[in-house]
């Protein structure tokens, strides 16, 4: 399905996107599954949906996640969160950097998938995604220094504020910019110690699936990132209303669904965040404030006395 498919795709207009090589070898087709708790299950509902390239070729079937899959994903994310947040910032930074190493190794696959999705410059998109991941990895052990600090209160007290991860973050990835858009939401969410349940782009889920395969083979602990493919409109309300999800990134939520999402989020006072509406390739698309938007500020007092 991927790998060298991009170059050969032009010869096909229906059926599988990969032409047999001139030697007549039939390629092994891909199955795209969900990513929950470090494993790749099919949807418990047994459903899937067809994924088409921008020019109408059938690329694969992707799992069509159900609300129960989402429920399981949240459970996995919650279970993994204390351990992930409990690692040193240095360790999380190293793990994220390793993810970038593995993404670099899969460039060709990612480029082919972006080409299938209709990206005008797949190579640029993949490079930007990898570099953005590296950029966020470097923030792990610096966020506290830039956005935390001591507060000079008027009394003999030592007072400091530290940012802490909020918990389980639901992420609705943007439908287009299938890799860079996803990375721009996911990396800042997890670098601080949050765990995530991601709803992948509905029309172009395959780069997300490949990214989940990268995460599974890196040192990211199971459950830190969970990725569901499926129909956005069907899944978003369940994510928005889930009482054990601490925050929701609504960047990929269609405008008409947003009011409903915010209402549902009110029930457990979920933090609702939307990424900046800028060119994803621009420098302002990445910022430490995307990290702190999903963090809590904890302030501690202690008297100072002999």
């Amino acid at each position: 399905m991927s790998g060298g498919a991009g170059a050969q795709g032009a010869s096909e207009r229906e059926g599988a996107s990969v032409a047999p090589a001139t030697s007549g070898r039939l390629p092994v087709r891909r199955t795209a599954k969900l990513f929950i708790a470090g494993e790749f299950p099919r949807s418990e509902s047994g459903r899937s949906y067809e994924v088409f390239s921008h020019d109408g070729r059938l690329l694969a079937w992707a799992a069509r996640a159900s609300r129960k899959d989402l429920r399981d994903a949240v459970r996995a994310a919650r279970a993994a969160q204390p351990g992930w947040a409990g690692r040193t910032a240095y360790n999380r930074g190293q793990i994220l950097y390793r993810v970038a190493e593995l993404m670099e190794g899969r460039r060709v696959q990612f480029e082919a998938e972006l080409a299938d999705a209709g990206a005008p410059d797949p190579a640029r998109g993949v490079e930007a995604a990898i570099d953005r991941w590296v950029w966020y990895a470097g923030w792990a052990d610096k966020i506290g220094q830039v956005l935390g600090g001591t507060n000079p209160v008027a009394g003999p007290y030592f007072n400091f504020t530290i940012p802490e991860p909020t918990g389980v973050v639901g992420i609705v990835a943007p439908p287009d910019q299938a890799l860079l858009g996803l990375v721009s939401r996911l990396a800042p969410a997890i670098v601080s110690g949050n765990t995530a349940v991601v709803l992948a782009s509905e029309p172009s889920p395959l780069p997300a699936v490949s990214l989940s395969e990268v995460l599974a083979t890196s040192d990211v602990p199971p459950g830190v990132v969970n990725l569901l493919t499926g129909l956005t409109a069907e899944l978003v309300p369940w994510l928005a209303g889930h009482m054990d999800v601490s925050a929701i990134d609504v960047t990929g939520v269609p405008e008409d669904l947003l009011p409903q999402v915010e209402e549902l989020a009110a029930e457990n006072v979920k933090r609702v965040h939307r990424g900046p509406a800028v060119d994803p390739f621009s420098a302002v698309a990445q910022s430490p404030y995307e990290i702190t938007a999903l963090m809590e500020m904890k302030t501690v007092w202690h008297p100072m006395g002999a």
Partner: protein
Amino acid sequence: MGEIERRATSALEEQQRVWEYSTAPESTEIVRLQDRYGLFLGGRFVEPKSGRYFVTINPATEEPLAEVAEAGEEDVDLAARTAREAWEEHWRDLPGKERAKYLYRIARALQERSREFAVLETMNNGKPIKESRDVDVPLAAAHFFYYAGWADKLEYAFPGRIPRPLGVAAQITPWNFPLLMCAWKLAPALATGNTAILKPASTTPLTALLLAEVIEQAELPPGVVNVIPGPGGRTGGWLAAHADIAKIAFTGSTEIGKVLRRNVAGTGKRLTLELGGKAANIVFEDAALDQAIEGIINGIFFNQGEVCCAGSRLFVQESVFEPLVDKLKARLDTLRVGDPLDKNTDVGAINSRDQLDKIEELVQSGIEEGAEIYQPECSLPERGFWFRPTLFTNVAQSHRIAREEIFGPVLSILTFRTPQEAVEKANNTEYGLSAGIWTEKGSRILWMADRMKAGVIWANTFNRFDPASPFGGYKESGFGREGGRHGLEPYLDLDGGNGA
């Protein structure tokens, strides 16, 4: 089989004879020593124009390890001009995220080659392999990793400022943590967009030269990092005086720090100094005593006490003096002094004959001035430079061993009665690098920390280092900070005045 068949009884000698830790399991084969090392200049190893080489040895055996090129005045000039050109042409305008990737490469390579670096460091410096393996090398890699992350985020580090690099940084490093000090200097310098000339200490150049190899492998543009060994007085002096140098970073003795400060006067060159110390390690009666003992031991015997921030003055609250000193002596008796390559060694060799002489002289002064010495019985190897872990009680503030930096495994123990007295005595020194506070009472920790004039204060711990944590001194212990966001500042122009 004889050992098994011998049914050891509870007789003391039986147990002691039978129980032995492994000796020298760390092989040196992983280190491929060359006979001769050139200067690392302009991206390659070259012969020195000075034509001179010096020999570097293993202080545990006094065996020569290799010949190392000595940079003469011409070599220094060439290095400075090369580094300046490299800055202007290859490094200054490189996007931060690309600089970051070079630094990540260096960090990763250090991790991959960690065993090699650790063994070489132990061979050249004399420190125990468990320290070079567990502390020096991992921290060095971590420094590159941490600063890599800053390279493309500098606009967030200083509110209201667009930071710019300075140019060429001259970096003069000491012999006590040869590789780690290179990392502390190079990582922030490169991350902020400067190029660097490293002048490692003359008794310990080898890990700096191995690091040069890593830099070559990381494919850094030639001239961005240069390594030019040579004696501090000459090579270091010419380097600091060179017109193409924009910034000097020095870690070493207070005496030389002052010389540098004088020589740089009026030149407009930026300077940071990380000098000596005589840290007060203060133990209150309510401290977690057994852990405080470990902290005291670590504070003065880690790296043979050859540490600027060593806890060399122990202040014990009088009410807990006896039990503490008893435990301390008992613990001292368990320290293993010997072959640094032995994984079970606690205290290694002193770095040089010179340093050993200094230690011996000061210890002698302690005895003559009336302090009471305690040293455990331990056999020392015949060759090499060794000094037994030592403690002095009955020490007065005025004794030389309480005022002067010994830079060896020698602890001076004094007493105090109240927190106020402890603070006064702790601050009563021209130094101000570090301090330790041991008490279970949180408010007292904060109260003491608030009043102590030291750049690094450890509470209920000691000798903890992290690339995210700023390190540096007050008063004659120097100025400027290394580590953390603050460690970027010395390498940046925040005023917009540099003609870049």
